[in-house]
Each structure stands twice: as structure tokens, then as C-alpha cells.
């Protein structure tokens, strides 16, 4: 890696760490606002202008709350479990292409932290590691309700990761590479001059299954039984208070943002927008493409919230049935059809 690329990568690391923390804060604020608007009410609007500093008030609240560690918990695991959820979520951003490559002093620099040629595999691996944190937190809590929540969460996430992965396999077949930048590069151009060559148009079934699986991966309604506020108190994060709870909370939002970013990259062209190919390959255009990518990911965050207040929660058996008996055959069929099509037309 050249020196300039290293500098870009380090700068992007700092940006993404900061952005992740901001997503946790502003994400929770916008979630409350949009949830309120859907329910015909106004959300928080007292702290700061139009309520925008509400997340800072929440942060201060989390800092000053009493940090309770129950008596019979496994202390080491209990304290480290939230980090085991947060860290995989944050380091997955390393392979996410954030913007268009640009030319600086004669060389082409990638606007991403690391251009792994097995990007998709890395993402699936990190998503799996994130499940450990939830199970550890649930188990270490010494609380049967947390345990139930944690087990349900892990079973749910494992089941839907299969469908997630198989949707990705279809995309990888279409793109011919596991690297996320190549997948985006495969989505340049237009059909009939006007329709962008986004994967959502040529792989609609994979898009639908990915979006359904992404809701299940992040434990969001309609798949949020692990948190099931009305049934399990708090699920796996019942016993957590103050900062440890804040970290679980933050990790959930970062996961949501990550999955949204993935959906954008895999199906909606990533940082591309119509007209981008006319612009020169400078740093400013890369920043513009980053802005477009961010907006697209925010649209998916809005989708998360929108669906949350539309659908009722699935029962656990319904959830598992959908994961194994409906989604998995659909994604398998999609992979099969894609493979046959590519073999026939190649």
C-alpha cells in the first residue's frame, strides 16, 4: 500500500469511528422522531434546537446512571460482552467502499479503508462473530429471561445468516468477485441508456431476501423477539445498565447502519448516482459520492423504522419457519437460477 493510500485509510478510519458514534446518537434521535411522526405525535423537541441535542442528553444520562453488576454474574464475560458486539460491527466498516476512487498526485487512491479481495466473506465472518457477544451477555447475566432472549437471538441470527449469505452468493455470481469494489464496479452503466445497472433490477429475489434477512440480523421488528420488550423485559440486555447498555444500544444502531450500507452497496449501486461518470476523478467528487452513499444508507435506516411501526412481531416458531422453510429455499432457488442463467449465457 502506498503512503498516500495509507493516509487516506487512516483518515477514513477516524471518520468511520466518529461516524459510527454519531450514527448511534443521531440514529436514536431520528428513530424517536420518525416513530413519533408515524404515531401522529411530535418526538423530542425540547433539548437543543428542534430537539437535535437529545442524544447528548441521553449520553449524559447513560454516563451518570448507576452501573449495576449483579452479584452472581460471571464478571469478566459480563463486562466484555457488550464490546464483543460493538467491535465486530465497527470493524466491518473496514471493507465497505465509501466513495469513488480518486486521483491524487498521479495515482489512483481507493476511498475505502482496506480493499480486501474477499470483502464479502469478511463481512459474513464479522457478522457471525457479533452473535457471540449477545450469547455471552445473555449467559453471563445469570438470569433466565436474559438467557432465553440470548438463545433466541443467536438462533434467529444464525438461521437468517444462511439466507443472507446465499443472497450474497447470487450477487457474487453476477459480479464474478468477492470484493465489494468490484461489485460496485459491476453496477456501472445503464440499460437502455436510462435505467442504472443496479443489482436490485437484475436480482430482485436476492434483494428481497436480503432485505428480509437484514431485518432479522439486526433483531429489528418484525423479528425483534430477542428484545421483545413486552415479553422478555429486555432480553439479553436486561441486566445491563448505564454504559454497558449504551454500548449494546450503540452496537444495534451500528449494525443497522452496516446492513443498510451493505444493501446499498450490493443492490443499489453503492456510491454511484446517475451522472457520476461525467464528473472528474477528484477528491471532491469522491466526497460527493460518499455523501450520496450516506444518504442512500440513511434511506434504508428510514425503511427500518418505517417497517418497525407497520408490522407486528413474529412469534418464535413463525420466525424460525420463515427462516428455514421459506427464505432458505427461495435463496437457494435464486442461486440455482442465477448460476444456470450465467452458464447458459456465458
Amino acid at each position, binding site marked *: 500500500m502506498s503512503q498516500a493510500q495509507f493516509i487516506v485509510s487512516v483518515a477514513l478510519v477516524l471518520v468511520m469511528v466518529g461516524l459510527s458514534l454519531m450514527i448511534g446518537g443521531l440514529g436514536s434521535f431520528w428513530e424517536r422522531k*420518525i416513530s413519533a411522526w*408515524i404515531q*401522529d405525535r*411530535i418526538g423530542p423537541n425540547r433539548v437543543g434546537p428542534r430537539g437535535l441535542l437529545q442524544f447528548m442528553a441521553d449520553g449524559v444520562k447513560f454516563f451518570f446512571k448507576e452501573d449495576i453488576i449483579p452479584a452472581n454474574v460471571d464478571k469478566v464475560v459480563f463486562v466484555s460482552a457488550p464490546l464483543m458486539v460493538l467491535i465486530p460491527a465497527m470493524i466491518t466498516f473496514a471493507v465497505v467502499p465509501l466513495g469513488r476512487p480518486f486521483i491524487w498526485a498521479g495515482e489512483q487512491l481507493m476511498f475505502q479503508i482496506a480493499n480486501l479481495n474477499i470483502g464479502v466473506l469478511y463481512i459474513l465472518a464479522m457478522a457471525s462473530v457479533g452473535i457471540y457477544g449477545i450469547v455471552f451477555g445473555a449467559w453471563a447475566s445469570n438470569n433466565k429471561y436474559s438467557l432465553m432472549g440470548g438463545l433466541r437471538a443467536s438462533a434467529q441470527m444464525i438461521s437468517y445468516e444462511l439466507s443472507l449469505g446465499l443472497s450474497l452468493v447470487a450477487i457474487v455470481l453476477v459480479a464474478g468477485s468477492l470484493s465489494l469494489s468490484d461489485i460496485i464496479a459491476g453496477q456501472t452503466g445503464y440499460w437502455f441508456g436510462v435505467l442504472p445497472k443496479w443489482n436490485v433490477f437484475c436480482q430482485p429475489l436476492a434483494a428481497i431476501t436480503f432485505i428480509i434477512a437484514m431485518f432479522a440480523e439486526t433483531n429489528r421488528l418484525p423479528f425483534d423477539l430477542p428484545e421483545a420488550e413486552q415479553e422478555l423485559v429486555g432480553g439479553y440486555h436486561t441486566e445491563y445498565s448505564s454504559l454497558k447498555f449504551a454500548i449494546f444500544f450503540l452496537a444495534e444502531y451500528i449494525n443497522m447502519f452496516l446492513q443498510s450500507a451493505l444493501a446499498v452497496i450490493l443492490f443499489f449501486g453503492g456510491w454511484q448516482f446517475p451522472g457520476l461518470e461525467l464528473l472528474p476523478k477528484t477528491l471532491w467528487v469522491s466526497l460527493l459520492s460518499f455523501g450520496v452513499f450516506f444518504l442512500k444508507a440513511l434511506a434504508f435506516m428510514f425503511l427500518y423504522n*418505517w*417497517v418497525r411501526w407497520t*408490522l407486528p412481531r413474529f412469534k418464535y416458531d413463525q420466525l424460525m419457519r420463515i427462516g428455514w422453510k421459506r427464505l432458505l429455499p427461495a435463496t437457494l432457488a435464486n442461486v440455482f437460477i442465477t448460476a444456470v442463467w450465467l452458464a447458459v449465457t456465458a
Partner: protein
Amino acid sequence: MAINVGRSKKLTLAERFYFPAILTGMKLTLRHMFSKKITLQYPEEERDFLPNYRGVHRLNKGESDRIKCVACEMCASACPAHCITIKATEVDWEDRDKIPKIFEIDELKCIYCGYCVEACPKDAISMTRLYHMVDRNREDMVFGLDKLLSIYDETKDEKTLDGEDFGVGDEQRRPVDLTSWQKPAPVSPAIGTTSAGGGH
């Protein structure tokens, strides 16, 4: 008694995906997102209460600015919370022998039921639409005679809950018409005629 809902329509394959239902639901939530919000921003906006709202009490004044109350203690007897304390004193006016020397309502004990207003024969006590009652100690929330009269001075022109709202004089409140709720008498096939009038 079993009620047959009659769900004979089986879902089609497309319906079983639930996608159309989900999209309909999402359209509904989106519509709500852009509709008018019903939140009331207190304290900048306050609710406008109906005229019959039961708020803080006041003692009414009659002609020549004299208190209407005759210290008969009917309100104190009617009060379920026993929050009214009255001590009468003699007075030599043309229409009464007594007026209250001490008339205290403990607004914290009061349950705001309005029985005192209903019980008063002289329309001397009413309930206003004031509801902001904040103070720093319990003693100040026991409203005395002067406080209750000063509330009258403040709300003189407003419509308050008076005794008239419970019926005027001996006239009872108009009863609800129950005859419209009575089921018609069943037809008796043996006799061949309908029974007359409302049975029971």
C-alpha cells in the same frame, strides 16, 4: 352463543406472501407520518376545557357584591372527601341569618367530584376551569374564604360549573330516554298477533 365469522375465502398464493398487505400497511404509516400531529405543546399551548369542567372552587357573590353562601353546610355534608370546613357567624341581613366566618376547602384533599356544587341550594359555590394549582407547602393549599372570593373576582365573566348544570331547583336532571333501547317484544306465533307496546 357461537358467532360464525365465515372465513371461507382462502388466501391466494400471492396473498400468502403478505407483500400486498405489508405494502398497504406501509402506505398507511407513511400517510400518518405526514398528517397533522395531535400533540399539545404544554406549557405554550393549553387545553381548552369544556364549560362543565370541574376545576378550582370559588364562592359566588350575589347582588351588591355580597357573598351568596348562607353557611348551611350542605356542601360540607355532601363532600365525600370531607375537605370543606365551615364555621358560621350571625349576621343581620334581610335575606339570611348566617354567613360563613370560616370557609376552607383543602384543595389537596378535594377529589373534584362537584357534589358540593350540586348540593348547594343557593348556587353559592361553583367550579371554575382553573387547574394550575401549585404551591410549596400543604398549608397554602387550604383555600380560605378570601382566596375563594378572589377567585370569583378573577373568573367573574367565565362560564363555570354551577348548580344549574345539575338541574334547576326541584327539577331533576332530564332522564335519559330508555325506551329507544328496549328490544321489541317477540312475536308469539300461537296467537298470531304482536304484543302491544314495549314489553320489558
